[in-house]
């Protein structure tokens, strides 16, 4: 049962006033708010259990290790990975993509090789590949999207060549909301024996993902966009690949034997977790995922779809609003411009009305270039948002139009 009142009580941050107005938080694409349960788990940890993991025989340390490994199991279960060893904790989606770009690049990418991404990637899935390509003299190729916001995946057939080493694609666009047909992309790539990485930063919190069914080779996401804490994320990889990849960062815990002559590395997943990991972050992350599971991803998807549909209808009724991203399959992200109004002007007014929307390029400048705009306003909705909040945003839009046009 989806009970909005109960759910909203779990999010104390939502119950505040901003500039004297009740907060309307529509910036969930940037980061979601955290339920009490997450903050409580973190607080408990600091107040009762804190101890560094993996290397200690004492009680607190072994408890901490157990909780950390339980968190890994929670993630494994959440994404239906085959084995816990395939779940690596990182600092976030960006950290995960950099790990992949480096380690995969060291092992598999040489001069003239090609990596394929899409035109709608977040910078986190562009810049690491650009850095790799410039280091290795490799080439970054791009699957374009059309003005509706759908990938032209038929182009993938031409883009894939003998030199293609990896396809890395955004699952759900943080600007357009498009849910990309990753199954088809994976199928096409696998037909040519090319591995695929999925950037699930904007999908993991909205829809069930089963990495085994998907058959993706790598998958990344951040906890803080999935009702969890900052500073922690996940890099999933199939064991057959992870075994082959060289380590990314060096340090404590990721090694087996160290001497100045030779150093050998620890087994998976530890090989990729150098130094003291963010074990408290991992526990908080697990709590966030469990919270999602307690509501149910299907309930979430349903509720968010309803909000999206409602908002789109209201926007149409107002008129003079251009929505960017009109795919038939999309999540509850609405990027738009009010005709004739600069997004920053609109954003500043919304702010004073207590509405938190994001304005700017949303770390996806190629999308802005595609549409020939400098920025957009983005309202990204979560299941805890309400239709009343959407109504209030719409009144804000009317006010903006009055002020600026």
């Amino acid at each position, binding site marked *: 049962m989806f009970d909005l009142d109960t759910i909203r009580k779990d999010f104390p941050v939502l119950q505040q006033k901003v*500039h004297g107005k009740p907060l309307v938080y529509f910036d969930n694409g940037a980061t979601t708010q955290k339920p009490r349960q997450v903050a409580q788990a973190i607080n408990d940890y600091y107040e009762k259990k804190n101890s560094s993991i993996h290397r200690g025989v004492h009680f607190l340390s072994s408890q901490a290790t157990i909780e950390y490994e339980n968190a890994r199991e929670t993630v494994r279960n959440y994404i239906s990975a085959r084995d816990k060893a395939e779940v690596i904790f990182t600092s976030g989606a960006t950290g995960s993509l950099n790990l992949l770009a480096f380690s995969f690049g060291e092992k598999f990418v040489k001069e003239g090789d090609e990596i394929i991404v899409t035109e709608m990637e977040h910078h986190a899935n562009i810049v690491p590949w650009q850095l790799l390509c410039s280091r290795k003299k490799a080439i970054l190729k791009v699957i374009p999207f059309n003005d509706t916001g759908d990938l032209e995946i038929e182009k993938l057939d031409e883009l894939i060549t003998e030199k293609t080493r990896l396809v890395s694609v955004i699952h759900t666009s943080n600007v357009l909301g498009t849910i990309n047909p990753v199954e088809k992309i994976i199928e096409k790539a696998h037909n040519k024996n090319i591995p695929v990485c999925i950037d699930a930063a904007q999908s993991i919190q909205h829809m069930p993902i089963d990495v085994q069914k998907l058959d993706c080779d790598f998958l990344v996401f951040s906890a803080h966009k999935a009702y969890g804490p900052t500073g922690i994320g996940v890099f999933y990889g199939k064991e057959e690949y992870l075994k082959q990849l060289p380590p990314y960062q060096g340090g404590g815990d990721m090694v087996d034997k160290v001497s100045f002559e030779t150093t050998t590395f620890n087994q998976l997943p530890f090989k990729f977790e150098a130094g003291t990991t963010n074990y408290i972050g991992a526990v908080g992350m697990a709590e966030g995922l469990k919270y999602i599971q307690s509501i149910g991803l299907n309930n979430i998807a349903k509720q968010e779809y309803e909000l999206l549909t409602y908002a789109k209808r209201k926007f149409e009724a107002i008129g003079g609003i251009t929505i960017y991203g009109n795919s038939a399959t999309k999540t509850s992200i609405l990027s738009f411009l009010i005709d004739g109004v*600069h*997004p*920053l*002007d609109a*954003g*500043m*007014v919304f702010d*004073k009305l207590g509405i938190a929307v994001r*304005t*700017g390029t949303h770390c996806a400048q190629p999308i802005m270039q595609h549409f020939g705009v*400098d*920025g957009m306003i983005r309202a990204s909705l979560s299941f805890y948002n309400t239709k009343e909040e959407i109504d209030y945003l719409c009144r804000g839009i009317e*006010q903006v139009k009055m*002020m*600026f046009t």
Partner: protein
Amino acid sequence: MSEITDIEQEIVEEFEIFDDWMDRYNYLIEISKDLPIIESEYKTNEYIIQGCQSKVWVNADYKDGKVIYTADSDAIITKGIITLLIRVLSERTPKEIIDADLGFIDKIGLRENLSPTRANGLLAMIKQMKLYAIAYKAKHGAN
């Protein structure tokens, strides 16, 4: 001409009558029309101010020991804010400009715009305006 601080005080008083943000913004929109617009030849990337979500161009001329600013922006509230800055700083000596502490920004509630977010470029604008003054001071040994 009055002191910088007098003009600042004037602006603070003008803003005091608004008890609502929308009125303040409407006022900024209103005065944005008074902005001395930069010549179109200067609306190039060279004159653009980095770190803004809106585009801001600022130029400064030097005449009779004083700096005269012109500017433009594609966002209207930003334009209004520059209009205020120009009202305070334009037609001043480089030294006056360099020394100005611009406390009025805080007092009229625009302080949060001074944070080093990348969203708005108020801090960058002020820095650029002061840089022009510093440059003219160096060039003309003015004070």
